[in-house]
């Protein structure tokens, strides 16, 4: 087995491989081609055999299974990845920019002493590694050149297509000599954040409200609009953080994924974690005072304007 150019680390939760694992394979293959070398994949904990089969897609050269523990444990992941790097010497570590990815990737990069770039939306290699990422709430993109001969990158979900096609990877079990029992952080269980009064995932039309609404009292305006339109009210995260709406109304990465026919985003900037929950809506409409708000990049229709002027007019129209 040749040394890999890229070692990608898969992610799974409660028995299911997460979609980002397959996206990592696509990004990993691209980068391995640019660097010149193999793409290896690691899968740690849980039913590694089954996961290895699912990860065996076109372009993957080798899969290393580390059969220790069941669920994500950051010290097991860290230990396994570091042992794999020791044994196989990859140029690039490619990890998911997920909540769990961010719970171990920085520690791995730190202890290996390799530069880390998180939340990549594009990567390229031409004598040096360059990574594209967003800054200032997606208003600008930056290209970052990384100095060094080993790198760690976490990639944003949804930016690369999932790898397809059956692969011919060698699958080998790897003894990483890690012990979950020694971890200083012990997972006690999981909890689903409850469903409340409505299921926004069922709604055909959502009027979604963001921080642009400014005050809790002003939410009344949004409920009036929703009633006039026959729509359901959902929101971005800050509205829920403020305790103005229950958690079951939150759209996004840590909230609900919704796919309504119409999603009317009022005073929502369109942060990546919000967009993750609503980009599948059939028609996206945004009302926002800021013409540069990233929500306009995914909208089908937009009004650049003040919601406090637009919404009352819209209510009038529907009443």
């Amino acid at each position, binding site marked *: 087995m040749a040394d890999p150019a890229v070692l990608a680390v898969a992610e799974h939760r409660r028995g299911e491989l997460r979609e980002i694992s397959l996206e990592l394979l696509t990004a990993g293959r691209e980068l391995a081609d640019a660097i010149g070398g193999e793409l290896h994949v690691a899968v740690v904990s849980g039913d590694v055999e089954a996961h290895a089969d699912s990860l065996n897609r076109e372009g993957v050269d080798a899969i290393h299974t580390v059969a220790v523990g069941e669920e994500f444990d950051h010290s097991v992941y860290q230990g396994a990845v570091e042992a794999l790097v020791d044994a196989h010497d990859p140029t690039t570590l490619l990890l998911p920019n997920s909540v769990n990815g961010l719970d171990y990737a920085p520690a791995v990069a730190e202890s290996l002493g390799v530069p880390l770039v998180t939340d990549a939306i594009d990567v390229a290699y031409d004598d040096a590694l360059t990574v594209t990422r967003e800054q200032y*709430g997606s208003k600008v993109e930056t290209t970052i050149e990384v100095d060094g001969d080993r790198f760690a990158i976490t990639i944003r979900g949804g930016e690369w297509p999932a790898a397809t096609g059956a692969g011919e990877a060698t699958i080998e079990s790897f003894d990483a000599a890690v012990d979950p029992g020694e971890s200083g952080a012990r997972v*006690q269980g999981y909890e689903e954040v409850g469903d409340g009064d409505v299921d926004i995932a069922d709604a055909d039309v959502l009027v979604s409200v963001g921080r642009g609404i400014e005050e809790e009292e002003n939410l009344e305006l949004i409920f009036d609009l929703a009633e006039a339109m026959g729509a359901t009210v959902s929101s971005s995260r800050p509205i829920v953080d403020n305790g103005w709406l229950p958690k079951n109304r939150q759209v996004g990465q*840590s909230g609900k994924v919704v796919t309504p026919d119409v999603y009317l985003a009022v005073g929502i900037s369109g942060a990546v974690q919000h967009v993750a929950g609503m980009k599948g809506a059939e028609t996206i409409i945004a009302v926002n005072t800021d013409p540069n708000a990233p929500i306009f990049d995914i909208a089908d229709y937009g009004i650049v304007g003040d919601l406090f002027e637009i919404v009352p007019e819209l209510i009038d129209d529907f009443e």
Partner: protein
Amino acid sequence: MKVLVTVKEVAEVGDDFAIEGTEIAESDLEYDLNEWDDYAIEAGVRLAEDGIADEVVALTIGPERSEETIRMALAKGADRAVRVWDDAIAEAFLDVDTKVDLLEAVVDEEDPDLVLTGVQAADDAFGATGVALADRIGFEHAAVVNDLDLDADAGVANVRRELEGGVEELTEVDVPAVLTVQTGINEPRYASLRGIRQAQRKEIATKDLADIGLSPDDVEGALTVTNMYEPESESDAEIIEGDPGEAAGRLAEVLREKGVDA
């Protein structure tokens, strides 16, 4: 127990902005306390109010201007603050490793039992400093914490980590630890007038690289920003023009076409 809270003043981009080289024009930036750090400060101050923490120290890497922001942390109840800055820092791109170098030096001096950081900074959104710091200083850690119950006697923090899709992980973390704090963990207070007055009298210790035993070479990171640009919009969004009445009327038509009607 001593709690150290890392705090960052973040830059926000106004509605109109210009890019100059690889930076946003200074005049188009506004500065504010990082949203995630506000929740971390609140978590620290509550530990003090609950009698668990004896001292809450706010730590920032930032220029003189950022003292305004740090005062907010003091006004909300942090006992004192440490600000690290140096001309050499101003010139570098502060990558995760460099930030950790700087923070580690202060942690060595302060010797905290718990470090609280925000999950990410709103401007560069690396989301990595807390966990990297934990590894460096040999603390346990948990990322994206939206609930904290600290049992000082048992030496553990019972936390919830907010995973994707509305799932929370319940985890017991040995202390000393670094926790990266997610919004929604609490309700950050507003600084009271009294708090603001008191903050004026609280200490902000300023340290340059030499003070913390580092040299300008230590802040030369591995990352260089080579380009900054406004992303090309792939959207073919139809922008509805007109005064509010006209625009709303036209939008109502569009909505009706899409089958919306009460």
